[in-house]
Protein backbone atom coordinates (compact mmCIF):
# COMPACT_ATOMS: atom_id res chain seq x y z
CA UNK A 1 0.00 0.00 0.00
CA UNK A 2 1.27 3.46 -0.90
CA UNK A 3 2.55 5.62 1.93
CA UNK A 4 1.50 9.25 1.71
CA UNK A 5 3.16 12.31 3.21
CA UNK A 6 0.07 13.13 5.22
CA UNK A 7 -2.24 10.43 6.52
CA UNK A 8 -5.21 10.55 8.81
CA UNK A 9 -4.85 8.93 12.22
CA UNK A 10 -7.39 6.77 13.98
CA UNK A 11 -8.29 9.54 16.43
CA UNK A 12 -9.31 11.78 13.52
CA UNK A 13 -11.39 9.05 11.89
CA UNK A 14 -13.20 8.61 15.23
CA UNK A 15 -13.66 12.35 15.76
CA UNK A 16 -14.88 12.87 12.20
CA UNK A 17 -17.36 10.00 12.42
CA UNK A 18 -18.69 11.08 15.83
CA UNK A 19 -18.64 14.75 14.81
CA UNK A 20 -20.73 14.07 11.74
CA UNK A 21 -23.37 12.38 13.88
CA UNK A 22 -23.50 15.02 16.61
CA UNK A 23 -25.80 17.90 15.79
CA UNK A 24 -28.33 20.14 17.54
CA UNK A 25 -31.21 17.89 16.44
CA UNK A 26 -29.67 15.05 18.48
CA UNK A 27 -30.60 16.72 21.78
CA UNK A 28 -34.25 16.91 20.78
CA UNK A 29 -34.20 13.39 19.33
CA UNK A 30 -32.57 12.20 22.57
CA UNK A 31 -35.35 13.78 24.62
CA UNK A 32 -37.95 12.19 22.32
CA UNK A 33 -36.34 8.81 23.02
CA UNK A 34 -36.53 9.54 26.75
CA UNK A 35 -40.18 10.60 26.56
CA UNK A 36 -41.16 7.52 24.51
CA UNK A 37 -39.89 5.17 27.20
CA UNK A 38 -39.10 6.17 30.75
CA UNK A 39 -36.57 8.97 30.89
CA UNK A 40 -34.33 7.33 33.46
CA UNK A 41 -34.16 4.21 31.29
CA UNK A 42 -33.63 5.95 27.96
CA UNK A 43 -30.07 4.64 28.02
CA UNK A 44 -31.39 1.14 27.28
CA UNK A 45 -32.86 2.23 23.94
CA UNK A 46 -29.79 4.34 23.16
CA UNK A 47 -27.38 1.50 23.90
CA UNK A 48 -29.49 -0.95 21.88
CA UNK A 49 -29.64 1.54 18.97
CA UNK A 50 -25.86 2.00 19.24
CA UNK A 51 -25.35 -1.77 19.34
CA UNK A 52 -27.46 -2.20 16.22
CA UNK A 53 -25.59 0.60 14.47
CA UNK A 54 -22.39 -1.29 15.34
CA UNK A 55 -23.67 -4.22 13.26
CA UNK A 56 -24.20 -1.86 10.38
CA UNK A 57 -20.78 -0.27 10.96
CA UNK A 58 -19.25 -3.72 10.55
CA UNK A 59 -20.95 -4.06 7.17
CA UNK A 60 -19.73 -0.59 6.17
CA UNK A 61 -16.22 -1.56 7.31
CA UNK A 62 -16.11 -4.61 5.07
CA UNK A 63 -17.40 -2.62 2.10
CA UNK A 64 -14.98 0.25 2.71
CA UNK A 65 -12.06 -2.16 2.89
CA UNK A 66 -13.27 -3.71 -0.38
CA UNK A 67 -13.66 -0.37 -2.18
CA UNK A 68 -11.73 2.28 -0.26
CA UNK A 69 -13.01 5.23 -2.23
CA UNK A 70 -15.11 8.33 -1.80
CA UNK A 71 -17.46 6.95 -4.45
CA UNK A 72 -18.31 4.36 -1.75
CA UNK A 73 -22.03 3.76 -1.57
CA UNK A 74 -22.57 4.06 -5.33
CA UNK A 75 -19.74 1.65 -6.00
CA UNK A 76 -20.87 -0.99 -3.49
CA UNK A 77 -24.38 -1.04 -4.94
CA UNK A 78 -23.10 -0.90 -8.52
CA UNK A 79 -20.94 -3.99 -8.04
CA UNK A 80 -23.55 -5.81 -5.98
CA UNK A 81 -26.50 -5.01 -8.27
CA UNK A 82 -26.13 -2.67 -11.25
CA UNK A 83 -25.34 0.93 -12.10
CA UNK A 84 -28.90 2.19 -12.47
CA UNK A 85 -29.91 0.80 -9.08
CA UNK A 86 -26.74 2.32 -7.63
CA UNK A 87 -27.58 5.75 -9.05
CA UNK A 88 -31.20 5.57 -7.86
CA UNK A 89 -30.31 4.50 -4.31
CA UNK A 90 -27.30 6.78 -3.85
CA UNK A 91 -29.28 9.81 -5.07
CA UNK A 92 -32.16 8.80 -2.79
CA UNK A 93 -29.77 8.50 0.14
CA UNK A 94 -27.72 11.65 -0.47
CA UNK A 95 -30.62 14.00 -1.29
CA UNK A 96 -32.84 12.40 1.35
CA UNK A 97 -30.07 12.82 3.91
CA UNK A 98 -29.72 16.46 2.94
CA UNK A 99 -33.27 17.08 4.17
CA UNK A 100 -31.94 16.83 7.74
CA UNK A 101 -30.54 20.29 7.10
CA UNK A 102 -34.11 21.63 7.20
CA UNK A 103 -34.70 20.25 10.69
CA UNK A 104 -31.22 21.16 11.86
CA UNK A 105 -31.43 24.78 10.75
CA UNK A 106 -34.91 25.08 12.31
CA UNK A 107 -33.65 23.82 15.65
CA UNK A 108 -30.52 25.92 15.51
CA UNK A 109 -32.63 29.01 14.80
CA UNK A 110 -34.55 28.20 18.02
CA UNK A 111 -31.23 28.19 19.85
CA UNK A 112 -30.17 31.51 18.31
CA UNK A 113 -33.51 33.18 19.07
CA UNK A 114 -33.09 31.96 22.63
CA UNK A 115 -29.66 33.56 22.81
CA UNK A 116 -30.33 36.96 21.18
CA UNK A 117 -34.08 37.21 21.69
CA UNK A 118 -36.74 38.16 19.15
CA UNK A 119 -35.75 41.21 17.08
CA UNK A 120 -38.56 41.63 14.55
CA UNK A 121 -41.02 38.77 14.60
CA UNK A 122 -40.55 35.16 15.76
CA UNK A 123 -41.11 33.68 12.29
CA UNK A 124 -39.11 36.32 10.42
CA UNK A 125 -36.27 36.04 12.93
CA UNK A 126 -36.26 32.28 12.72
CA UNK A 127 -36.08 32.34 8.93
CA UNK A 128 -33.38 35.01 9.08
CA UNK A 129 -31.19 32.82 11.31
CA UNK A 130 -31.85 29.76 9.20
CA UNK A 131 -30.79 31.56 6.02
CA UNK A 132 -27.77 33.20 7.68
CA UNK A 133 -26.55 29.85 8.96
CA UNK A 134 -27.04 28.03 5.66
CA UNK A 135 -25.46 30.83 3.61
CA UNK A 136 -22.51 31.04 6.00
CA UNK A 137 -21.78 27.33 5.68
CA UNK A 138 -22.26 27.56 1.91
CA UNK A 139 -19.82 30.48 1.76
CA UNK A 140 -17.19 28.60 3.78
CA UNK A 141 -17.49 25.72 1.31
CA UNK A 142 -17.44 28.07 -1.67
CA UNK A 143 -14.16 29.55 -0.43
CA UNK A 144 -12.79 26.03 -0.16
CA UNK A 145 -12.10 26.25 3.58
CA UNK A 146 -11.71 22.78 5.07
CA UNK A 147 -11.89 21.93 8.77
CA UNK A 148 -8.56 20.24 9.48
CA UNK A 149 -8.24 16.98 11.35
CA UNK A 150 -6.81 18.67 14.42
CA UNK A 151 -9.69 21.15 14.68
CA UNK A 152 -12.18 18.31 14.20
CA UNK A 153 -10.40 16.31 16.93
CA UNK A 154 -10.50 19.25 19.32
CA UNK A 155 -14.17 20.04 18.65
CA UNK A 156 -15.47 16.49 18.87
CA UNK A 157 -13.49 15.29 21.88
CA UNK A 158 -14.15 18.45 23.86
CA UNK A 159 -17.89 18.21 23.12
CA UNK A 160 -18.02 14.52 24.09
CA UNK A 161 -16.05 15.06 27.31
CA UNK A 162 -18.13 18.09 28.21
CA UNK A 163 -21.43 16.25 27.74
CA UNK A 164 -20.26 13.28 29.82
CA UNK A 165 -18.97 15.55 32.61
CA UNK A 166 -22.22 17.53 32.68
CA UNK A 167 -24.20 14.28 32.76
CA UNK A 168 -22.17 12.81 35.62
CA UNK A 169 -22.38 16.07 37.54
CA UNK A 170 -26.17 16.01 37.18
CA UNK A 171 -26.32 12.44 38.51
CA UNK A 172 -24.10 13.46 41.39
CA UNK A 173 -26.22 16.40 42.47
CA UNK A 174 -29.72 15.05 41.79
CA UNK A 175 -29.34 11.28 41.41
CA UNK A 176 -31.38 8.97 39.18
CA UNK A 177 -34.17 6.79 40.53
CA UNK A 178 -33.89 3.61 38.44
CA UNK A 179 -36.04 1.34 40.65
CA UNK A 180 -39.14 3.55 40.34
CA UNK A 181 -38.54 3.90 36.60
CA UNK A 182 -38.50 0.12 36.10
CA UNK A 183 -41.94 -0.14 37.70
CA UNK A 184 -43.41 2.52 35.41
CA UNK A 185 -46.21 1.27 33.11
CA UNK A 186 -44.47 3.06 30.23
CA UNK A 187 -41.48 0.77 30.50
CA UNK A 188 -42.64 -1.84 27.96
CA UNK A 189 -40.85 -3.81 25.27
CA UNK A 190 -42.96 -2.02 22.64
CA UNK A 191 -41.94 1.43 23.89
CA UNK A 192 -38.28 0.43 24.16
CA UNK A 193 -38.44 -0.89 20.57
CA UNK A 194 -40.05 2.30 19.23
CA UNK A 195 -37.56 4.47 21.11
CA UNK A 196 -34.71 2.34 19.76
CA UNK A 197 -35.88 3.01 16.21
CA UNK A 198 -35.78 6.75 16.83
CA UNK A 199 -32.52 6.28 18.72
CA UNK A 200 -30.92 5.30 15.41
CA UNK A 201 -31.27 8.97 14.44
CA UNK A 202 -28.71 9.86 17.11
CA UNK A 203 -26.08 8.04 15.06
CA UNK A 204 -27.11 9.32 11.62
CA UNK A 205 -24.04 10.28 9.65
CA UNK A 206 -21.37 8.12 11.34
CA UNK A 207 -20.88 6.32 8.02
CA UNK A 208 -20.20 9.54 6.09
CA UNK A 209 -16.62 9.16 7.26
CA UNK A 210 -16.07 6.37 4.69
CA UNK A 211 -14.48 8.70 2.09
CA UNK A 212 -11.60 9.22 4.52
CA UNK A 213 -10.44 5.70 3.59
CA UNK A 214 -8.44 7.31 0.78
CA UNK A 215 -6.45 9.29 3.34
CA UNK A 216 -5.60 6.51 5.78
CA UNK A 217 -2.60 4.21 6.01
CA UNK A 218 -4.68 1.13 6.69
CA UNK A 219 -8.16 0.60 5.22
CA UNK A 220 -9.22 -1.20 8.41
CA UNK A 221 -8.84 2.08 10.26
CA UNK A 222 -12.07 3.57 8.91
CA UNK A 223 -14.09 0.58 10.08
CA UNK A 224 -12.40 0.63 13.46
CA UNK A 225 -12.98 4.38 13.68
CA UNK A 226 -16.70 4.05 12.91
CA UNK A 227 -17.14 1.41 15.60
CA UNK A 228 -15.23 3.40 18.20
CA UNK A 229 -17.24 6.50 17.30
CA UNK A 230 -20.51 4.61 17.81
CA UNK A 231 -19.28 3.28 21.14
CA UNK A 232 -18.28 6.78 22.28
CA UNK A 233 -21.56 8.28 21.09
CA UNK A 234 -23.59 5.53 22.78
CA UNK A 235 -21.94 6.22 26.14
CA UNK A 236 -22.16 10.01 25.75
CA UNK A 237 -25.81 10.05 24.67
CA UNK A 238 -26.80 7.51 27.32
CA UNK A 239 -25.32 9.62 30.09
CA UNK A 240 -26.39 12.99 28.75
CA UNK A 241 -29.95 12.17 27.67
CA UNK A 242 -30.80 10.62 31.07
CA UNK A 243 -29.19 13.61 32.81
CA UNK A 244 -31.06 16.07 30.59
CA UNK A 245 -34.36 14.30 31.29
CA UNK A 246 -33.65 14.34 35.03
CA UNK A 247 -32.60 17.97 34.92
CA UNK A 248 -35.83 19.25 33.34
CA UNK A 249 -39.01 19.89 35.32
CA UNK A 250 -42.24 18.06 34.41
CA UNK A 251 -43.59 21.30 32.96
CA UNK A 252 -40.48 21.80 30.83
CA UNK A 253 -40.55 18.19 29.67
CA UNK A 254 -44.09 18.60 28.40
CA UNK A 255 -43.72 22.09 27.01
CA UNK A 256 -42.81 20.84 23.54
CA UNK A 257 -39.56 22.79 23.62
CA UNK A 258 -37.12 22.51 20.72
CA UNK A 259 -34.16 23.50 22.90
CA UNK A 260 -34.22 21.08 25.86
CA UNK A 261 -30.43 21.17 26.23
CA UNK A 262 -30.38 24.96 26.66
CA UNK A 263 -33.18 24.89 29.26
CA UNK A 264 -31.41 22.05 31.03
CA UNK A 265 -28.13 23.97 31.09
CA UNK A 266 -29.89 27.05 32.44
CA UNK A 267 -31.56 24.98 35.18
CA UNK A 268 -28.22 23.54 36.16
CA UNK A 269 -25.67 26.33 35.66
CA UNK A 270 -27.72 29.49 35.08
CA UNK A 271 -27.17 31.87 32.13
CA UNK A 272 -23.48 30.95 31.80
CA UNK A 273 -24.36 27.29 31.32
CA UNK A 274 -26.97 28.21 28.74
CA UNK A 275 -24.42 30.35 26.88
CA UNK A 276 -21.92 27.47 26.80
CA UNK A 277 -24.56 25.11 25.42
CA UNK A 278 -25.61 27.68 22.83
CA UNK A 279 -22.00 27.87 21.61
CA UNK A 280 -21.77 24.09 21.55
CA UNK A 281 -25.00 23.83 19.59
CA UNK A 282 -23.76 26.30 17.00
CA UNK A 283 -20.44 24.44 16.68
CA UNK A 284 -22.11 21.03 16.47
CA UNK A 285 -24.54 22.23 13.79
CA UNK A 286 -21.79 24.00 11.90
CA UNK A 287 -19.40 21.03 11.77
CA UNK A 288 -22.15 18.58 10.94
CA UNK A 289 -23.79 20.77 8.30
CA UNK A 290 -20.45 21.86 6.85
CA UNK A 291 -19.44 18.24 6.30
CA UNK A 292 -22.85 17.58 4.77
CA UNK A 293 -22.47 20.38 2.23
CA UNK A 294 -18.84 19.47 1.56
CA UNK A 295 -19.52 15.78 0.93
CA UNK A 296 -22.76 16.35 -0.96
CA UNK A 297 -21.32 19.06 -3.22
CA UNK A 298 -18.43 16.75 -4.14
CA UNK A 299 -20.89 13.96 -4.79
CA UNK A 300 -22.99 16.24 -7.02
CA UNK A 301 -19.82 17.38 -8.82
CA UNK A 302 -18.68 13.78 -9.41
CA UNK A 303 -22.15 12.77 -10.64
CA UNK A 304 -22.14 15.69 -13.08
CA UNK A 305 -18.66 14.83 -14.32
CA UNK A 306 -19.78 11.25 -14.88
CA UNK A 307 -22.76 12.51 -16.95
CA UNK A 308 -25.32 11.25 -14.44
CA UNK A 309 -26.73 14.70 -13.79
CA UNK A 310 -26.46 17.78 -16.05
CA UNK A 311 -22.89 18.96 -16.67
CA UNK A 312 -23.60 22.43 -15.31
CA UNK A 313 -23.25 21.03 -11.77
CA UNK A 314 -19.57 20.28 -12.42
CA UNK A 315 -18.62 23.93 -12.92
CA UNK A 316 -15.65 24.96 -10.80
CA UNK A 317 -14.85 28.40 -9.49
CA UNK A 318 -11.82 29.91 -11.23
CA UNK A 319 -10.18 31.07 -8.01
CA UNK A 320 -11.14 28.53 -5.34
CA UNK A 321 -11.60 25.38 -7.46
CA UNK A 322 -14.82 24.78 -5.52
CA UNK A 323 -17.85 23.26 -7.30
CA UNK A 324 -19.84 26.47 -7.00
CA UNK A 325 -22.94 25.44 -8.93
CA UNK A 326 -23.27 22.31 -6.78
CA UNK A 327 -22.76 24.35 -3.59
CA UNK A 328 -25.25 27.07 -4.57
CA UNK A 329 -27.81 24.43 -5.57
CA UNK A 330 -27.44 22.67 -2.24
CA UNK A 331 -27.68 25.96 -0.35
CA UNK A 332 -30.85 26.82 -2.32
CA UNK A 333 -32.28 23.36 -1.60
CA UNK A 334 -31.50 23.77 2.11
CA UNK A 335 -33.16 27.21 2.23
CA UNK A 336 -36.32 25.93 0.51
CA UNK A 337 -36.46 22.98 2.91
CA UNK A 338 -35.91 25.20 5.91
CA UNK A 339 -38.73 27.47 4.75
CA UNK A 340 -41.05 24.47 4.37
CA UNK A 341 -40.17 23.28 7.88
CA UNK A 342 -40.65 26.80 9.17
CA UNK A 343 -44.20 27.11 7.82
CA UNK A 344 -45.24 23.55 8.67
CA UNK A 345 -43.21 23.22 11.90
CA UNK A 346 -42.91 19.50 11.07
CA UNK A 347 -39.25 19.11 11.98
CA UNK A 348 -40.05 15.83 13.70
CA UNK A 349 -41.31 14.54 10.35
CA UNK A 350 -37.82 15.03 8.94
CA UNK A 351 -36.21 13.40 11.98
CA UNK A 352 -38.41 10.30 11.68
CA UNK A 353 -37.84 10.19 7.91
CA UNK A 354 -34.07 10.50 8.38
CA UNK A 355 -34.07 7.65 10.91
CA UNK A 356 -36.07 5.49 8.47
CA UNK A 357 -33.76 6.43 5.60
CA UNK A 358 -30.79 5.41 7.70
CA UNK A 359 -32.41 2.05 8.51
CA UNK A 360 -33.05 1.58 4.77
CA UNK A 361 -29.46 2.26 3.77
CA UNK A 362 -28.18 -0.11 6.50
CA UNK A 363 -30.38 -2.84 5.01
CA UNK A 364 -28.99 -2.09 1.54
CA UNK A 365 -25.40 -2.14 2.79
CA UNK A 366 -25.88 -5.49 4.53
CA UNK A 367 -27.38 -6.86 1.29
CA UNK A 368 -24.32 -5.56 -0.57
CA UNK A 369 -22.00 -7.41 1.83
CA UNK A 370 -23.81 -10.70 1.15
CA UNK A 371 -24.00 -10.17 -2.64
CA UNK A 372 -20.39 -9.01 -3.00
CA UNK A 373 -19.10 -12.03 -1.11
CA UNK A 374 -20.70 -14.14 -3.84
CA UNK A 375 -19.74 -11.91 -6.78
CA UNK A 376 -16.20 -11.01 -5.67
CA UNK A 377 -15.21 -13.84 -3.31
CA UNK A 378 -11.46 -13.54 -3.93
CA UNK A 379 -11.12 -9.76 -3.84
CA UNK A 380 -8.96 -8.59 -0.96
CA UNK A 381 -10.83 -7.37 2.11
CA UNK A 382 -8.79 -5.74 4.86
CA UNK A 383 -11.75 -6.40 7.16
CA UNK A 384 -14.35 -9.13 6.95
CA UNK A 385 -17.46 -9.24 9.15
CA UNK A 386 -17.05 -12.38 11.32
CA UNK A 387 -19.47 -15.35 11.59
CA UNK A 388 -20.23 -15.62 7.87
CA UNK A 389 -23.52 -14.09 6.81
CA UNK A 390 -25.04 -14.06 10.30
CA UNK A 391 -24.35 -10.40 11.10
CA UNK A 392 -25.41 -9.02 7.68
CA UNK A 393 -28.62 -11.11 7.83
CA UNK A 394 -29.34 -9.93 11.39
CA UNK A 395 -28.66 -6.34 10.25
CA UNK A 396 -31.17 -6.72 7.41
CA UNK A 397 -33.86 -8.22 9.64
CA UNK A 398 -33.40 -5.81 12.54
CA UNK A 399 -33.25 -2.59 10.52
CA UNK A 400 -36.09 -3.65 8.21
CA UNK A 401 -38.17 -4.36 11.33
CA UNK A 402 -37.19 -1.03 12.91
CA UNK A 403 -38.10 0.82 9.71
CA UNK A 404 -41.46 -0.91 9.40
CA UNK A 405 -42.10 -0.46 13.12
CA UNK A 406 -41.42 3.24 12.70
CA UNK A 407 -43.82 3.52 9.77
CA UNK A 408 -46.75 1.93 11.60
CA UNK A 409 -46.23 4.13 14.64
CA UNK A 410 -47.46 7.68 15.25
CA UNK A 411 -45.48 10.72 16.33
CA UNK A 412 -46.91 12.55 19.31
CA UNK A 413 -46.07 15.76 21.08
CA UNK A 414 -44.93 15.88 24.68
CA UNK A 415 -48.56 15.88 25.86
CA UNK A 416 -49.38 12.73 23.91
CA UNK A 417 -51.34 14.43 21.12
CA UNK A 418 -50.86 12.89 17.67
CA UNK A 419 -48.72 15.09 15.44
CA UNK A 420 -48.76 12.81 12.41
CA UNK A 421 -49.00 9.18 11.42
CA UNK A 422 -45.56 7.96 10.45
CA UNK A 423 -46.87 6.17 7.37
CA UNK A 424 -46.81 9.63 5.77
CA UNK A 425 -43.02 9.45 6.09
CA UNK A 426 -43.15 6.16 4.19
CA UNK A 427 -45.37 7.77 1.54
CA UNK A 428 -42.97 10.73 1.18
CA UNK A 429 -39.99 8.37 0.94
CA UNK A 430 -41.77 6.17 -1.59
CA UNK A 431 -42.60 9.13 -3.82
CA UNK A 432 -39.01 10.32 -3.59
CA UNK A 433 -37.67 6.81 -4.31
CA UNK A 434 -39.95 6.61 -7.38
CA UNK A 435 -38.59 9.95 -8.61
CA UNK A 436 -34.93 8.95 -8.20
CA UNK A 437 -35.64 5.56 -9.81
CA UNK A 438 -37.41 7.22 -12.73
CA UNK A 439 -34.44 9.53 -13.10
CA UNK A 440 -31.89 6.71 -12.94
CA UNK A 441 -33.72 4.36 -15.28
CA UNK A 442 -35.25 6.83 -17.78
CA UNK A 443 -33.26 10.07 -17.78
CA UNK A 444 -29.67 8.94 -17.07
CA UNK A 445 -29.45 6.62 -20.13
CA UNK A 446 -30.27 9.64 -22.32
CA UNK A 447 -27.59 11.76 -20.66
CA UNK A 448 -25.06 8.96 -21.03
CA UNK A 449 -25.94 8.46 -24.71
CA UNK A 450 -25.51 12.16 -25.36
CA UNK A 451 -22.12 12.08 -23.59
CA UNK A 452 -21.04 9.06 -25.63
CA UNK A 453 -22.08 10.77 -28.84
CA UNK A 454 -20.06 13.82 -27.83
CA UNK A 455 -17.06 11.63 -27.05
CA UNK A 456 -17.30 9.85 -30.42
CA UNK A 457 -17.53 13.11 -32.34
CA UNK A 458 -14.42 14.42 -30.62
CA UNK A 459 -11.11 13.77 -32.36
CA UNK A 460 -8.86 11.55 -30.27
CA UNK A 461 -5.68 13.30 -29.24
CA UNK A 462 -3.71 10.17 -28.48
CA UNK A 463 -1.57 9.17 -31.47
CA UNK A 464 -2.54 5.82 -33.01
CA UNK A 465 -0.44 2.85 -31.94
CA UNK A 466 2.39 1.94 -34.28
CA UNK A 467 2.09 -1.72 -35.32
CA UNK A 468 5.38 -3.60 -35.17
Amino acid at each position, binding site marked *: *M*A*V*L*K*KVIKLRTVVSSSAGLAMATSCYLAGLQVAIMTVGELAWISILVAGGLCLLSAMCFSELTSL*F*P*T*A*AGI*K*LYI*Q*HAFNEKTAIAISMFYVIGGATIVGAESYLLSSVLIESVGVILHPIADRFFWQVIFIVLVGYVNFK*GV*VITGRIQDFLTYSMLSFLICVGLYTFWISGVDISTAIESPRFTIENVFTATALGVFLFVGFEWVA*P*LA*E*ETEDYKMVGKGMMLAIALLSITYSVFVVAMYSGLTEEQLHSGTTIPHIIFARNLFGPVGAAVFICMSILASFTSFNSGI*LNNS*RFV*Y*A*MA*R*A*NIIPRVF*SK*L*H*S*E*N*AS*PWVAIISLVGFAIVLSFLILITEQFLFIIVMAAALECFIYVVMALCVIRLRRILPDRERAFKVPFGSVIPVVTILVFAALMLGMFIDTTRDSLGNILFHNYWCAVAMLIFACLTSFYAFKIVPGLKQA*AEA*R*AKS*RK*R*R*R*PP*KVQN
Partner: protein
Amino acid sequence: MARSEDIMEALKDYKIQCNNNKRLRRMQRDWTKLIHFLAEDTGDTFTMDVVKGEIITVQAGKEGTPDVFITANSEDMCDMFWGDLNPAQKYLDGEIRVKASQEDVQRIDAITMIIWPDT
Protein backbone atom coordinates in the same frame (compact mmCIF):
# COMPACT_ATOMS: atom_id res chain seq x y z
CA MET B 1 -1.57 -2.40 -22.71
CA ALA B 2 0.35 0.88 -23.00
CA ARG B 3 4.13 0.91 -22.79
CA SER B 4 6.04 3.06 -20.34
CA GLU B 5 7.26 5.25 -23.23
CA ASP B 6 3.67 5.80 -24.41
CA ILE B 7 2.67 6.99 -20.96
CA MET B 8 5.73 9.23 -20.72
CA GLU B 9 4.87 10.78 -24.07
CA ALA B 10 1.33 11.38 -22.85
CA LEU B 11 2.64 12.86 -19.61
CA LYS B 12 4.89 15.29 -21.47
CA ASP B 13 1.95 16.51 -23.55
CA TYR B 14 -0.16 16.73 -20.37
CA LYS B 15 2.52 18.90 -18.78
CA ILE B 16 2.46 21.33 -21.72
CA GLN B 17 -1.35 21.47 -21.76
CA CYS B 18 -1.52 22.16 -18.02
CA ASN B 19 1.26 24.70 -17.85
CA ASN B 20 -0.08 26.65 -20.84
CA ASN B 21 -3.61 26.91 -19.43
CA LYS B 22 -3.89 30.26 -17.63
CA ARG B 23 -7.23 29.48 -16.00
CA LEU B 24 -5.91 26.24 -14.59
CA ARG B 25 -2.72 27.89 -13.33
CA ARG B 26 -4.77 30.54 -11.53
CA MET B 27 -7.12 27.98 -10.03
CA GLN B 28 -4.30 25.71 -8.86
CA ARG B 29 -1.93 28.52 -7.79
CA ASP B 30 -1.82 27.27 -4.17
CA TRP B 31 -1.64 23.58 -5.08
CA THR B 32 1.78 22.00 -4.50
CA LYS B 33 1.83 18.21 -4.61
CA LEU B 34 4.05 15.28 -5.41
CA ILE B 35 2.00 12.73 -7.32
CA HIS B 36 2.85 9.08 -7.97
CA PHE B 37 1.12 7.05 -10.69
CA LEU B 38 1.08 3.27 -10.86
CA ALA B 39 0.03 1.41 -14.01
CA GLU B 40 -1.21 -1.70 -12.26
CA ASP B 41 -1.15 -4.00 -15.30
CA THR B 42 2.47 -3.24 -16.23
CA GLY B 43 3.85 -2.19 -12.87
CA ASP B 44 5.28 1.01 -14.37
CA THR B 45 5.44 3.98 -12.05
CA PHE B 46 5.72 7.71 -12.70
CA THR B 47 6.25 10.81 -10.62
CA MET B 48 4.81 14.25 -11.25
CA ASP B 49 5.95 17.25 -9.24
CA VAL B 50 3.46 20.11 -9.11
CA VAL B 51 4.56 23.39 -7.53
CA LYS B 52 1.99 26.16 -7.17
CA GLY B 53 -0.07 24.71 -9.99
CA GLU B 54 2.84 24.34 -12.39
CA ILE B 55 4.02 20.88 -13.38
CA ILE B 56 7.75 21.12 -12.83
CA THR B 57 8.80 17.58 -13.73
CA VAL B 58 7.33 14.32 -14.98
CA GLN B 59 9.52 11.25 -14.84
CA ALA B 60 9.43 7.48 -14.84
CA GLY B 61 9.86 5.77 -11.47
CA LYS B 62 8.96 6.81 -7.95
CA GLU B 63 10.68 9.82 -6.41
CA GLY B 64 10.09 10.92 -2.83
CA THR B 65 7.04 10.42 -0.65
CA PRO B 66 3.87 11.37 -2.50
CA ASP B 67 0.91 13.48 -1.43
CA VAL B 68 -1.25 11.70 -3.96
CA PHE B 69 -1.08 8.12 -5.26
CA ILE B 70 -3.07 7.18 -8.36
CA THR B 71 -3.55 3.63 -9.61
CA ALA B 72 -5.07 2.77 -13.01
CA ASN B 73 -4.42 0.43 -15.88
CA SER B 74 -1.85 1.63 -18.42
CA GLU B 75 -4.34 2.19 -21.25
CA ASP B 76 -6.65 4.31 -19.09
CA MET B 77 -3.68 6.23 -17.77
CA CYS B 78 -2.46 7.00 -21.29
CA ASP B 79 -5.93 8.03 -22.46
CA MET B 80 -6.38 10.18 -19.38
CA PHE B 81 -3.17 12.14 -20.02
CA TRP B 82 -4.08 12.61 -23.67
CA GLY B 83 -7.47 13.95 -22.61
CA ASP B 84 -9.40 11.12 -24.30
CA LEU B 85 -10.92 9.73 -21.11
CA ASN B 86 -13.15 11.12 -18.41
CA PRO B 87 -11.32 10.24 -15.17
CA ALA B 88 -14.33 11.01 -12.96
CA GLN B 89 -16.36 8.32 -14.71
CA LYS B 90 -13.57 5.77 -14.21
CA TYR B 91 -13.14 6.88 -10.61
CA LEU B 92 -16.84 6.46 -9.86
CA ASP B 93 -16.68 3.00 -11.44
CA GLY B 94 -13.70 2.11 -9.23
CA GLU B 95 -11.33 1.63 -12.18
CA ILE B 96 -9.11 4.56 -11.23
CA ARG B 97 -8.16 4.56 -7.55
CA VAL B 98 -6.75 7.52 -5.71
CA LYS B 99 -5.10 7.74 -2.31
CA ALA B 100 -5.26 11.38 -1.30
CA SER B 101 -7.36 13.89 0.55
CA GLN B 102 -10.82 14.51 -0.90
CA GLU B 103 -9.78 17.97 -1.97
CA ASP B 104 -6.83 16.60 -3.95
CA VAL B 105 -9.02 13.98 -5.62
CA GLN B 106 -11.33 16.71 -6.87
CA ARG B 107 -8.43 18.96 -7.91
CA ILE B 108 -6.89 16.20 -10.02
CA ASP B 109 -10.15 15.66 -11.86
CA ALA B 110 -10.50 19.43 -12.20
CA ILE B 111 -7.25 19.57 -14.20
CA THR B 112 -8.73 17.35 -16.90
CA MET B 113 -12.00 19.21 -16.85
CA ILE B 114 -10.34 22.59 -17.32
CA ILE B 115 -7.91 21.64 -20.08
CA TRP B 116 -10.36 19.36 -21.94
CA PRO B 117 -13.84 20.63 -20.99
CA ASP B 118 -15.58 18.32 -23.45
CA THR B 119 -14.29 15.03 -21.97
